[in-house]
């Protein structure tokens, strides 16, 4: 009998991934009220409190009012956080707790389709929350630059990147507790090293060198100028970093998920 699934094979995708994305969207719509409220209220409160509060103490950062620095960085960080959360806790619920994936696998939908759908959905959900923050930034007048719209495709790519990385850890998880490590040891330090809340210029050189290859730093480098009405000076390198993490992360997540299901 031939092998069920060759774990290292290239992704095999069909249009059947789409109903799985739609399924997740339908669940989200049911819970959208509190979700949208949280997506808007949280950045509104944070930007007002820290942006204007701390901003009034420290004035300008990197030649811009602190509230602009914080707001533009927060958009990228929230994108990473939302995609990560969806790719860890929510995907794990569907995969291991509710057995949603198992029931989908009894229909003519393959595991490759499901992993792709989960990745795409986590990126879409991240875009929802980024859009909410951009609306808040616009409403508060922190920025009204039309180039904010150009940040959206970049945030979509960042969502794909962080969703893929999260799905790697989802595939390895034996329970929710495992994700605490990823947040504490990966996401939180990365946030502080990526110039979201404060510039990294005063950090030791070696730490700055590390920061240059972090996906969140790449996202911030692209999103911050776009949100504030500028064109990123050197977009190719950060775009390349995000794409590389996305491709490698997605492939690794797929291989590990195949092994988890078909060992």
């Amino acid at each position: 009998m031939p092998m069920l699934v060759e774990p290292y094979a290239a992704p095999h995708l069909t249009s059947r991934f789409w109903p799985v994305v739609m399924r997740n969207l339908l669940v989200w719509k049911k819970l959208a009220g509190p979700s949208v409220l949280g997506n808007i209220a949280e950045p509104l409160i944070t930007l007002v409190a820290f942006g204007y509060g701390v901003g009034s103490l420290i004035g300008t950062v990197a030649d811009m009012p602190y509230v602009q620095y914080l707001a533009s960085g927060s958009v990228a960080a929230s994108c990473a956080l939302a995609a990560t959360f969806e790719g860890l806790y929510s995907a794990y619920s569907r995969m291991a707790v509710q057995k949603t994936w198992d029931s989908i696998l009894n229909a003519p939908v393959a595991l490759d389709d499901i992993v792709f759908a989960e990745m795409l959905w986590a990126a879409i959900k991240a875009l929802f929350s980024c859009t909410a923050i951009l609306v808040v930034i616009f409403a508060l007048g922190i920025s009204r630059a039309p180039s904010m719209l150009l940040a959206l495709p970049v945030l979509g790519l960042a969502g794909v990147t962080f969703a893929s990385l999260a799905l790697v850890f989802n595939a390895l998880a034996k329970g929710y507790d495992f994700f605490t490590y990823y947040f504490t040891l990966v996401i939180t330090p990365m946030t502080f090293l990526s110039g979201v809340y404060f510039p990294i210029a005063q950090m030791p050189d070696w730490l700055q060198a590390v920061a240059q290859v972090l996906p969140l730093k790449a996202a911030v480098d692209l999103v911050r100028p776009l949100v504030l009405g500028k064109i990123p000076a050197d977009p190719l390198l950060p775009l390349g970093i995000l794409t590389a993490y996305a491709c490698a992360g997605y492939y690794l997540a797929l291989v590990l998920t195949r092994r988890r299901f078909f060992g």
Partner: protein
Amino acid sequence: MPEPLLRVSHLTKKYGDAVVVDDLSFAIAPGECLGVIGPNGAGKTTTIRICLGLTGADGGEVEAFGMPMPERVRDAKKRIGVVTQFDSLDPDFSCVENLRVYGSYFGLPRATIAERVPRLLDFAALQSKASARPGELSGGMKRRLSLGRALINDPDLLLLDEPTTGLDPQARHLMWERLQNLLQQGKAILLTTHFMDEAERLCDRLLVLDHGRKIAEGRPRDLIAAHLESDVVEVYGDGAAAAGKLHGALAERVETSGETVFFYLREPKRLLDALASDHSIRYLHRPANLEDLFLKLTGRQIRDDS
């Protein structure tokens, strides 16, 4: 026999050194109900998972609708409906949404789904629960919704893994009635169960598995006739063990399980006369059934290795 819907040949599956499916062969004809019975760990669920391409086999072949598996699993699944042992309904969706969303996984047109959903709710006796979520349903309702969901693609073959486990008698009878209805519609069913009355009532043919091996196959009545004496006398009470020793010669076979002694025999009259005068016991005379067959073939010891 017409061309089978599902043909399993010399299937073997090992986990490390443990052989969980051992050279298993069987087939299901259109419209047939095949029951798979066996103790926990006999390989029932593993066999179903291999048939669905969810677990790899170490040897043998599976063919569904004439297509080799797992290569053509996607095409085969379009014609298969599955009810798993544990409910995997979407907790956030109503009954209607559960059916509708599951239909979308099959790529069914909206109009087809819209036309089938009310009929399936009706079939599952859940019309009044259309907008209820699984959390608000009883165990029997959930199982019927799972069955309805498995029918959304109008399958030719249903794979049902212990569909009535955990249900109360009312809910089980309703489930049986629905399964009989499906058989009358010409659907083929592969059913695993621990309930021998269920197997006897629903199945045209039975497969008895133990340690992954097929140890018997045939029509329920034929299997009982081939392997067992026609009558059973069960004896309980303080004097049961003594009665077993005293009257053992009157039966073809005597088995003791805990405090109960089972006499297997073809001519019960002499034993019944002898027991009638013994006031230290109670007894029950009944025809041999599938449970007796099952216990004879697979033994009385408890299997915990599920």
